[in-house]
């Protein structure tokens, strides 16, 4: 029965209301006529009065718009039964008021439409609708009957009681039927249910018949079956059962059978009371069962959801009590710990934790237990079933005071890998930092804008800054740099700028850094670009304060200079006297003395040569060599040097060739240039036994290249690196060749570089000879006339 869907049948609300009123009115009249047909104490007062229930149910289901139906229905029933139009109107008013008051009270106090959903509201319904509102109808009806002399005062009590009880049972038996069927959702009937339903109702009908036919006239026998139905089929089943029992019972009682047969009216009153109580009982029971089932369902659903949540979660979950006894372990603990959940339940959670971490976790749990609802996340080590130690991150939530949980919920997962990685990184970082800190060199790393990202301890100590002062600042502003001329190096010429743009490493020792206190120190540094995936992300600068090295260099140079001077004086005497002896100043030389004196002279000359070279190197190093830069013709200069060396070549039977080329001028110091040429050509002659020493020259826009090529012994590639070193005499040469100072090439290259030229070995092969190229700046003056070297009263350096 679906009263709620009825409104949808009519699109027009007014038409709908009309049909609704007509239907209810009809139902009211029919049921009213049937009820009154059982009237005995008074034609208008009957113990069987279904209209009360119909009126109440209609008003609850459809509201006050059905009042007309009730009023008209009641009037029709009464006016066609007994009395005048006046009394009928009065009684109809009473009946309508009864329904209205009942519906109002139910809506107000007893859940309205859902009056039969809880035990509490059922009893409120019973009180307000069945006891109170029914009195209204009984009172008004009886007054009407008395006023119109349709009843006498002596019949007052039985008529009033009959009226009241009839209405009461009507509301108790009929209203529930309409309300529970009218408000419940769809009914699902399965085959198994159907058999069960039919069987149960058959038993009910049979029992009722047995009772009311008088075979076993004990009305309470119906109660267990009604309760059984209420238990299994709920309120809807119970309301139908009541109607069925009522039908059989009324039929039998009216025919003089059954437990309530006393007198015509009394029998019906007792029967109605029984039926009312039966309805109340079964409804109450059904509602109770419904409530319990509903909450059980909710609980089961919640539990299932919670369980699913725990079991499907990635984290392992255990519930522990305040003493860390595990009361529940989720299946996922197996994955993390290796233990099955049942192996853990009932054990002490701390036993899983390594002894080192146990104290700490105990403290944390103790703190958590004192904070209801509190949460803590900690990391600790646990031992798996296979004795392997792992790190877990656990979050504990104190739900000890939550009656549904009564535990501390601990979610945890394995973080061993992360932890190991973290520790590895930390360890490496610590090692790196220790290493950086212990390095004596200053180390600074910057990003690609020159902003300092990292400095080590030595860098701070050398510069006099604290780490905090340097980090994040620009290296060029924090650490000013000066060049050899004590001029501040501008940003664009700073090595870091060049490294960032050229992406090449720079090593230099020609600058000074200014410390925080503006004091200066000579610095040697290596600036290396940091290139990540092809991009220069910054630089690393490693630098040293070379004050001490410079000082040592200076002292060494001073020593050499001093020693040279002191060595020169006796050599001057030896040389001078020898030359005078050979000149014959001391008379003719004894023939026997000629040879040893020759040897003395060679040795003395070599000594002088060495001392001069030493002195020049020292002067060069200390920056005390001066250059007089002029423009001079290169060919004439070469010719002069070659001529001077010609006797040596002739003596060894070597060809010494000078190739003439265009007239060009060099822009350099002529004396030092001659010295370099003397060295190079002299070397070639010294290390060549047969063949040729060829000197030639060429030029480009900026430079003149003088080539000195020989067919001598050549240079071992292994010795190339040593070639230009100080005091280097190559191993293979020492054995059978006249030793030189070992300074010649070094001095030549250093001198040429001071004049912005260079000396390079461009070709060499053992046994085949070598070619050296001496480059020097070309004069910008193109015409062939030249000015001679500025006259200074200074003798040339002879070699």
């Amino acid at each position, binding site marked *: 029965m679906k009263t709620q869907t009825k409104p949808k049948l009519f699109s027009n609300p007014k038409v709908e209301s009309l049909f609704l009123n007509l239907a209810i009115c009809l139902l009211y009249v029919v049921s009213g006529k049937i009820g009154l047909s059982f009237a005995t104490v008074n034609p208008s007062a009957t113990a069987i009065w279904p209209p009360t229930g119909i009126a109440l149910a209609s008003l609850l289901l459809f509201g006050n718009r059905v009042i007309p139906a009730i009023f008209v229905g009641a009037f029709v029933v009464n006016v066609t039964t007994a009395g005048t139009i006046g009394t009928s109107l009065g009684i109809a008013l009473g009946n309508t008021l009864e329904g209205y008051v009942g519906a109002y009270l139910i809506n107000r106090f007893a859940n309205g439409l859902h009056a039969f959903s809880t035990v509490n509201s059922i009893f409120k319904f019973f009180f307000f609708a069945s006891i109170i509102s029914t009195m209204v109808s009984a009172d008004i009806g009886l007054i009407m009957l008395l006023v119109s002399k349709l009843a006498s005062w002596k019949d007052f009590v039985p008529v009033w009681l009959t009226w009241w009880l009839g209405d009461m049972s009507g509301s108790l038996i009929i209203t529930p039927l309409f309300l529970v069927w009218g408000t419940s959702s769809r009914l699902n009937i399965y085959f198994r249910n159907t058999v069960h339903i039919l069987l149960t109702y058959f038993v009910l009908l049979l029992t009722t018949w047995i009772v009311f036919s008088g075979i076993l006239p004990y009305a309470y026998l119906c109660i267990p079956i009604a309760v059984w139905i209420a238990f299994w089929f709920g309120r809807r089943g119970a309301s139908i059962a009541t109607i069925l029992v009522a039908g059989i019972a009324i039929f039998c009682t009216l025919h003089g059978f059954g437990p309530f047969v006393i007198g015509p009216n009394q029998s019906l009153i007792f029967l109605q009371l029984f039926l009312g109580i039966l309805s109340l009982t079964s409804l109450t029971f059904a509602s109770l069962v419904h409530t319990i089932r509903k909450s059980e369902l909710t609980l089961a659903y919640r539990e299932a959801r919670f369980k699913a949540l725990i079991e499907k979660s990635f984290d392992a979950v255990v519930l522990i009590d305040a003493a860390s006894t595990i009361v529940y372990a989720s299946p996922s603990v197996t994955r993390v710990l290796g233990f099955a959940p049942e192996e853990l339940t009932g054990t002490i959670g701390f036993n899983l934790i390594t002894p080192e971490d146990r104290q700490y976790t105990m403290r944390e749990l103790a703190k958590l237990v004192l904070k209801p609802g509190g949460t803590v996340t900690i990391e600790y080590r646990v031992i798996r079933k296979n004795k392997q130690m792992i790190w877990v991150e656990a979050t504990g939530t104190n739900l000890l005071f939550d009656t549904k949980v009564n535990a501390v919920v601990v979610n945890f997962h394995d973080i061993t890998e992360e932890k190991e990685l973290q520790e590895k990184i930390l360890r490496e970082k610590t090692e790196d930092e220790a290493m950086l800190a212990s390095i004596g060199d200053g180390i600074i790393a910057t990003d690609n804008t020159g902003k300092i990202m990292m400095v080590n301890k030595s860098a701070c100590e050398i510069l006099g800054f604290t780490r905090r002062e340097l980090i994040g600042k620009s290296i060029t502003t924090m650490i000013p740099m000066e060049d050899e001329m004590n001029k501040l190096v501008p940003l664009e010429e700073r090595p870091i700028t060049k490294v960032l743009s050229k992406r090449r490493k720079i090593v230099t020792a020609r600058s000074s850094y200014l410390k925080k206190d503006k004091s200066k120190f000579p610095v040697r540094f290596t600036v290396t670009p940091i290139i990540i995936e092809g991009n220069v992300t910054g630089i690393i600068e490693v630098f040293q304060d070379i004050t001490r090295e410079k000082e040592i260099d200076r002292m060494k140079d001073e020593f050499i200079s001093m020693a040279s*001077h002191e060595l020169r*004086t006796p050599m*001057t005497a030896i040389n*001078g006297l020898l030359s005078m002896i050979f000149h014959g*100043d001391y008379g003719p030389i004894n023939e026997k003395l000629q040879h040893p004196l020759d040897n003395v002279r060679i040795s003395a000359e070599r000594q002088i040569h060495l001392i001069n070279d030493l002195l020049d190197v020292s002067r060069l190093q200390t920056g005390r060599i001066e250059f007089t830069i002029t423009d001079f013709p290169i060919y004439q200069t070469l010719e002069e040097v070659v001529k001077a060396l010609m006797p040596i070549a002739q003596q060894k039977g070597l060809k010494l060739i000078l190739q003439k080329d265009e007239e060009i001028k060099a822009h350099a110091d002529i004396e030092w240039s001659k010295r370099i040429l003397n060295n190079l050509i002299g070397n070639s002659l010294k290390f060549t036994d047969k063949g040729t020493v060829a000197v030639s020259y060429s030029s480009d826009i900026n430079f003149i290249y003088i080539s000195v090529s020989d067919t001598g012994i050549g240079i071992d590639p292994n010795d190339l690196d040593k070639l230009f070193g100080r005091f280097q005499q190559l191993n293979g040469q020492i054995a059978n060749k006249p030793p030189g100072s070992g300074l010649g090439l070094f001095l030549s290259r250093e001198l040429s570089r001071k004049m912005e030229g260079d000396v390079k070995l461009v070709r060499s092969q053992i046994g085949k000879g070598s070619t050296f190229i001496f480059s020097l700046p070309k004069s910008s003056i193109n015409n062939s006339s030249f000015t001679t070297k500025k006259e200074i*009263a*200074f*003798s040339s350096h*002879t070699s």
Partner: protein
Amino acid sequence: MKKVLIIEDDSVLLNMYQDKFALASFTVITANDGEKGLTMALSHQPDLILLDLALPKIKGTEIMKQLRVNDWGKNVPIIVLTNLNVDGKILEAITKYGPVYCLLKANTTPEEVFAKAQEILK
């Protein structure tokens, strides 16, 4: 006969140069420190002075300075004979007190010194 004054503290070198010039019939006078040298120069007024720079008592450059303020001394030719590195300040001092010729002793034989002297005195 030309007169030459040799101011040199190293007696071996002093003797060597003395021998060289004496053999060529020069009148040679010598001094082995700066003070004596200056006194002898002013009193004997030689035609040429061979002067060492690193001298006891009065340095060679100081002797030149003193000579050049003297009427006679301001034109006397001087050959500086030294084993010091002649550069910078020393060279400046030497050239300031010209006419002066500077020879590095170690690189120069007595013949070359003598040749230079003859060239100057010609």
